[in-house]
């Protein structure tokens, strides 16, 4: 246990130092990312205004709150990409991490967790600027805030597990980009990234319950902005923990089978 804690703290520190060197590059990346929710926000605010100030329970101010919180959740959501796994496996880069006496997944989790510290710091001024322009309607309680804090880190872990699983498909076939694209399209629609799930048809909302997507995206946002009853907040956290445990078990199981198939190409 000690060595894991040591490893995590050191890796996170390294990630912070490394990423702090590139604030401009990090900012360009974040601004490119922010264009997406701003578009959704503008479109939906226009719709809400046209419908007499509200659509699906959201006012323009509520949409602003939703999509500004969205930017933080999205930043937390960035994990080692399945395209990275493809590269790792195809190029044989994995060989190096296999030499280490620790599961390579720990390295990913720790590095990106450290990076998040930099990302959150850079996010604050952006969020303030967006709030000035779009005037969000946001009144979280202390409990909402606490749940949100845990929910975004749990979301980060859920997405780490699901995308690692997806990336590991590369152990069996290297033609994976089509599969990845399909996955991301499903995620876009079922997670609450495109629109708040309450604007989706009833059956889509019910369907979304059974996938990990909404627990890693829509739920944390709604926890902060939605004035959810305590019961729903706790159910959400419970679902998140369940997905993390399930995901971690699946990753370690698939890893055990997959690693026997791995034949490094080079590197």
């Amino acid at each position, binding site marked *: 246990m000690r060595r894991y804690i040591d490893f995590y703290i050191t890796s996170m520190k390294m990630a912070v130092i490394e990423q702090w060197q590139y604030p401009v*590059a990090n900012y*360009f*990346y974040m*601004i*490119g*990312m*922010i*264009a*997406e929710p*701003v*578009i959704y926000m*503008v*479109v*939906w605010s*226009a*719709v809400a205004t*046209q*419908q007499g100030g509200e*659509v*699906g329970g959201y006012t323009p101010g509520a949409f602003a709150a939703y999509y500004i919180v969205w930017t933080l959740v999205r930043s937390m959501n960035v994990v080692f990409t399945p395209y990275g796994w493809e590269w790792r496996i195809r190029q044989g880069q994995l060989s190096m991490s296999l030499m280490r006496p620790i599961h390579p997944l720990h390295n990913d989790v720790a590095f990106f967790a450290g990076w998040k510290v930099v990302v959150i710091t850079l996010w604050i001024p952006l969020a303030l600027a967006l709030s000035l*322009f779009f005037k969000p309607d946001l009144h979280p309680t202390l409990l909402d805030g606490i749940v949100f804090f845990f929910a975004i880190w749990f979301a980060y872990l859920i997405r780490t597990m699901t995308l690692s699983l997806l990336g590991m498909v590369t152990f069996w076939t290297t*033609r994976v*980009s*089509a599969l990845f*694209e*399909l996955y991301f*399209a499903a995620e*876009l*629609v079922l997670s609450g990234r*495109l*629109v708040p799930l309450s*604007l*989706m*048809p009833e059956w889509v909302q019910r369907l979304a319950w059974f996938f990990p997507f909404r627990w890693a995206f829509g739920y944390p946002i709604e926890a902060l902005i939605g004035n959810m009853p305590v019961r729903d907040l706790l159910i959400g956290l419970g679902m998140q923990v369940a997905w993390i445990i399930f995901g971690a078990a699946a990753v370690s199981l698939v890893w055990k089978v997959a690693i026997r198939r791995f034949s490094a190409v080079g590197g």
Partner: protein
Amino acid sequence: MTGIKLAFNYLRIGIMNEFQYRANLYIQILQTFIALGTGLIGLNLVFAQTSQLGGWGKADLLAVMGVFTMTGGFIRAAIQPNMERLMEEIREGTLDYALTKPADSQLLVSVREFRLWQLVDVLTGAIVVIIALVQLNWLMDIWSVLGFFSALVMGGLMVYCFWLIITSTAFWFVRVHEIANLFEGLYAAGRWPVDIYPNWLRYGLTFLVPVAFAVTVPASAITGRLTFETWLGALALTVTLFIIARTIWLIGVKNYSGASA
């Protein structure tokens, strides 16, 4: 004349290159359909709640989406790959090989790459536009057709100039890779007509990043919204942007010292 011949030859090589990787065509088709599908889902969600958005009906916005897909395909086929290669070569110092060739340097760096399979997007976008026009009970009108095609050409030229200006800054700043990501994010705003955006954003999308001229103006032309004044404005801006891009390119090349090629 030799310029056209040169561009044509590079186009031929580019197409031959792409034919080596035919499986990519299927991946491209799948990607196009996923993008189109999610776009349609977004459009339907909006129009489940309202019947018009900023004066545009559902079929009008379908036309906007068609033009968005077409222009996006053209950018990814002909503009972006050239500019990304240029960025790389400025950084690495291998631009020497292009500059020493006996042809106009700007022309040369703008025609070297061509991604044929991206034209799937152009074709699909065109089909979407046609479907939208059928839904609108569109009557053939020579002026809207001329306006549409001229606006498409001008929009394409403006996006090219924008990319060239941004890429030329690599002569001074070297690290501009994130710009591509930035452009893709901003270009996505073109999925909706720029009229719906707040003023500051609309001006930005018109004059800083010419998304308005690349997508909204051609869509306005084909749906009968384009005024002659806007068309003239587009023409003036195309010429201005081209002159600016050319000037910055020439200064940049003078500044270029070649690294270690």
